């Protein structure tokens, strides 16, 4: 390589370094839109809208089902949350939010169109009895609020891979997990995912869906 070529290269190099890292920053942050994996997970779920038939569950009456089937059979828009019933931190506030939402649903007479589902990921410790105790503690109305647990660790792994669920067991044998409200359509697909302080947005999305469905039905009847 002659000196001239080296001199040209040396002039280019700062630009090349910036360009190199610009590309990698872009790739890592999904084109500069996410700085945390959690926000990328939400973007992905909004765009991919995965089918939740993989999410096999057992409810507090011992019935086997999956979340997509639950949505299809009841023909409801479901607002779901991932919890474990022995949780003493974030799940308590999630439970309180669901309690208030349950009251709203009953008051507005929406229990036939809108449902709530708490899904426990604690596959090894959760059982019928713990779910029933949670139902009593939270005053969960079975017509509105379903309580289920994942069937086994394979389902938990699938939820981690497909929904970005993160569950870490901490030193006190409790779990640290990401929390969000996932809105599921009556066809069993994810419609949206919202932060724990965005329950009103989750309800708005559900009501919008129900309103558009109602409009469609009215048009067909006409």
């Amino acid at each position, binding site marked *: 390589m002659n000196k001239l070529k080296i001199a040209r290269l040396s002039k280019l*190099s700062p630009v090349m370094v910036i360009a190199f*890292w610009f590309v990698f*920053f872009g790739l890592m*942050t999904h084109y500069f839109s996410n700085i945390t*994996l*959690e926000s990328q997970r939400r973007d992905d779920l909004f765009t991919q809208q995965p089918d939740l038939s993989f999410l096999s569950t057992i409810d507090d009456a011992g019935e086997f089902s999956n979340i997509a089937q639950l949505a299809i059979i009841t023909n409801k828009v479901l607002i779901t949350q991932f919890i474990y019933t022995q949780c003493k931190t974030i799940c308590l506030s999630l439970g309180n939010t669901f309690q208030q939402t349950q009251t709203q649903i009953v008051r507005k007479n929406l229990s036939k169109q809108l449902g709530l589902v708490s899904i426990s990921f604690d596959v090894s410790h959760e059982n019928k009895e713990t779910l029933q105790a949670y139902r009593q503690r939270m005053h969960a109305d079975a017509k509105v609020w379903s309580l289920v647990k994942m069937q086994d660790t394979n389902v938990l792994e699938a939820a981690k891979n497909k929904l*970005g669920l993160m569950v870490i067991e*901490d030193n006190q044998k409790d779990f*640290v997990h*990401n929390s969000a409200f996932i809105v599921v359509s009556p066809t069993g697909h994810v419609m949206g995912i919202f932060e724990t302080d965005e329950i009103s947005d989750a309800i708005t999305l559900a009501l919008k869906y129900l309103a558009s469905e109602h409009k469609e039905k009215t048009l067909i009847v006409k």
Partner: protein
Amino acid sequence: MINTLLTTKTKAIYSVAALIIAVTPSLPFARVLIESSMTFHMLFQIPMLILAGYLLKNNPKKLHYTLSQSTAQWLWIYLSSTFWMMPISIDKALLYPTWDAFKLISLLTAGAVLKVVFKSHRLLALFFVGSMAMMLFFVGFYYQQTDTRLCNAYLIESQQLTGTGLIVIACLLLFFLFFKIQQGLADAEYSRPD
């Protein structure tokens, strides 16, 4: 610097040892180390990779061909360390082996370049070290103060501890900066003609 104090053989032993210590936590059998603690990942493995890169036997002339200007070298160090301070980078390095391999390569390169770059213009070095200290301080402060868990893979306590560690590193860099400025002023005073 460190290099001048050590014999060739000891240097080789240290560089291999540092490389093994830095890379081992990314290997499957030892991944539990970085998976279980954000503090270990960000305050031990990342600085250790840079140190291992610094201690690697390399040919400064070759590095000059590829990253020939000191600005480019400083940019590499600055951008690579900023890149690995982002919560999404840390999470993805744990989830995807390709990103973890990129972490090893980019930070080892940053360490190798660090050896050359200290010979560059002092003002440039001070500017980049200062910028790096500010970046580390703000990232550390954010990690320490926020109630949100930024990395999905780590506990909030680990995140806060890492934040404190980053602030300490930022302060050490600032002390280093002031020391260098003082030294520069003293040299200038000494060499000034009467």
